[in-house]
């Protein structure tokens, strides 16, 4: 489903990725962990064209994205990016709901205006999502009146409304109060395990990672330093850096309610 080969990315003079390779199979759940600044977010953003990359190849659901260097994207490049975005859904750390629209309008906006789905059909689908994530009672509310957890759940519904083949989660609970982290992780967990959605999730929630991941990728300084099953990474980390990182995180006592 997702193939990344020899990815190079720089910010100005600062070289971040110096040749990353990764493959994600259909239905696989891959969790990215690592210190801040290690490149997890940037990596996800390279996959749906929000960040240009200077060398390498990215292939998503059969569509190839090419490196741009300093050039402006050509018409073909832009079209490829757009096709990729139609097949991938992204959930942001800051939710990024559209503040001038209601919850319902947020969810149906893209299906109606991008895919041309009939408005009533789109609304029905939206209601189905909202019922599943327990937010039916808020369909006409504006995002500003929702809690962080509610907003993120709506954001997930908004991404899913486009029926993507892959979902990218960029630190989805990092901005949430601890009490709300659980409800959002529950939704994501439900999505990946029951629906079998191919997902790439970057997170600091180790308990969650342990539970849903088929594979864990450890990032540090723009490099993938280790990959493995949750069992391998959490109990027998091989790389020194991984060990240091895990020690700092896992030492903090876990709170209840994170196992969905």
């Amino acid at each position, binding site marked *: 489903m997702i193939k990344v080969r020899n990815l190079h990315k720089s910010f100005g003079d600062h070289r971040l990725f110096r040749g990353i390779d990764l493959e994600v199979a259909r239905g696989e759940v891959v969790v990215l962990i690592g210190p801040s600044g290690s490149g997890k977010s940037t990596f996800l953003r390279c996959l749906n064209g929000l960040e240009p990359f200077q060398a390498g190849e990215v292939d998503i659901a059969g569509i190839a994205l090419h490196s741009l260097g300093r050039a402006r994207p050509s018409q073909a490049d832009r079209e490829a990016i757009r096709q990729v975005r139609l097949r991938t859904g992204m959930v942001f750390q800051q939710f990024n709901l*559209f503040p001038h629209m209601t919850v319902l309008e947020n969810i149906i906006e893209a299906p109606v205006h991008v895919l041309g789905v009939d408005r009533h059909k789109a609304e029905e689908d939206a209601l189905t999502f909202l019922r599943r994530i327990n937010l039916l009672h808020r369909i006409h509310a504006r995002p500003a009146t929702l809690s962080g957890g509610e907003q993120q759940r709506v*954001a997930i519904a908004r991404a899913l409304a486009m029926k993507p083949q892959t979902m990218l989660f960029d630190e989805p609970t990092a901005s949430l109060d601890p009490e709300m982290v659980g409800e959002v992780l529950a939704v994501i967990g439900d999505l990946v395990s029951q629906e079998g959605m191919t997902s790439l999730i970057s997170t600091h929630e180790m308990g969650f990672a342990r539970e849903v991941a088929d594979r864990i990728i450890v990032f540090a300084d723009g490099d993938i330093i280790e990959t493995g099953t949750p069992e391998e990474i959490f109990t027998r980390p091989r790389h020194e850096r991984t060990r240091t990182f895990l020690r700092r995180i896992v030492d903090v006592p876990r709170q209840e309610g994170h196992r969905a």
Partner: protein
Amino acid sequence: MPARTRWSALVLLCLAAIAAPPDLNASPRATLQAIKERGILLWGCDISGGAPLAFVDPKDPAALLGFEADIAGAIAKELGVRSQVVQTDWDSLVPGLERGNYDMAMNGLEITPEREKRVLLSRPYYVYTLQLVVRKDEERIKSIADLPGRKVGTMAGTSADSLLKKIGNVEISAYSQTWPFDDVALGRIDAAFMDTPITAYYAKPDARLKYAGPPEGKGYYGIAIRRSDPELKTFIDTVIEKLLRSGDLKTIYDKWGLWDKAQADLAAYGTPEASRKLRAESADAPLASFLPLLLKGAGITIALSIASMALAIALGIIISVTRLYGPPALSAAATAYIEVYRGTPLLIQLFIIYYGLPNIGIVLSPVVAAIIGLGMNYAAYEAEVYRGGIEAVPRGQMEAALSVGMPRTLALRRIVFPQAFRVSLPAVTNDFIALFKDSSIVSVIAMVELTKTYSILAATTLRYFELGIIVALLYFGMSYPLSVLARSLEKKLKGRT
């Protein structure tokens, strides 16, 4: 209002503005035949220059008085047509004539060699002298010989101006929109040096001022005609000759006590009865009699401002989007547009559009020129307001829109712009209200809106204060509802976000 109706209304408004009737005299050849067929003799004059040359009757602000109005009427009568004044700033009288706005210009234009290079001048219809005016208690200045080292006010570009320069070492204050007499009385300048008809009406009756020295110099007023219309000049010359020989010209000037040089000496030292009567009438006229003219001016101000703002907003959106999202070449062009239009005075832009474009064959009516000038100027400011608004919308909004597959233009239209609009609204309201006042600048391209109407009425009646209050209230009455509307719109939008 649904979006489509809003857009249609906007388009119709712009079309209506552009479809305004062109100059009556589009072709600059004013043959006698053409004038007779038209039925109107158009003459250019600055009636805010006021009495006693040509000015508005305080009892009936729609009527024109003054000896030049009378002469224009006499010429028209000889042609079998009626006369119609075309209000034009004094500095723009000759350019306006060359441009074809009217058939002839008459407003105390002195016959000088420089002027004769550009236009034809009729035989003189009046002999004027120059008079020095000082404060009542002035002891040091007894004649123009005492002027070196002093500050003297006069009208720019006249023979009084030249004479002062020839005396040498005189600090000259040039006036064009107002008379210098108030400044003499207030002590801002030491003296004023002006044509006798003007001093007779404005300075002589003023208790704060007095004449100093005898009348100086001697000059002639002539009517200006385009070089391409020699037969009109010949005709006007014969009419003036006729008025002189029949005594009608004397009758006209007698009303104002301005007949011939010898009596001008006397008249300069006496107070003409007509002037005294007129000033009394001006002071007593009920303010309500001025309302129709003022409301007409207000109507023009409103129509002009709305049409210009509509253009400014539409153009501003295009320019700011081009600057932010266009290819590098177009983006640079947009930035250049903004810097040039913000960095140069609106007045000069209007002059170029109205008086300069005819040189390359584009002749615009005053209405169209005014709307284009104001619209294009304000568009530069609007573009920056919109850019600020757009950049204030968090980046995550565009990213979220893009990530669900929206093309950039759709994301801008449905996600970014509505949020940017809300942020920009106070600044846009600000600009719109400012535009209402800035619209007064179009008086320099021959449009009479509210402020110009005020100038004209106030110059005649000298009731600057009372009329000023009324006009200020009218402007306030136009702008304030706009503020209220904008604030209620802001409140409504706040409920949405």
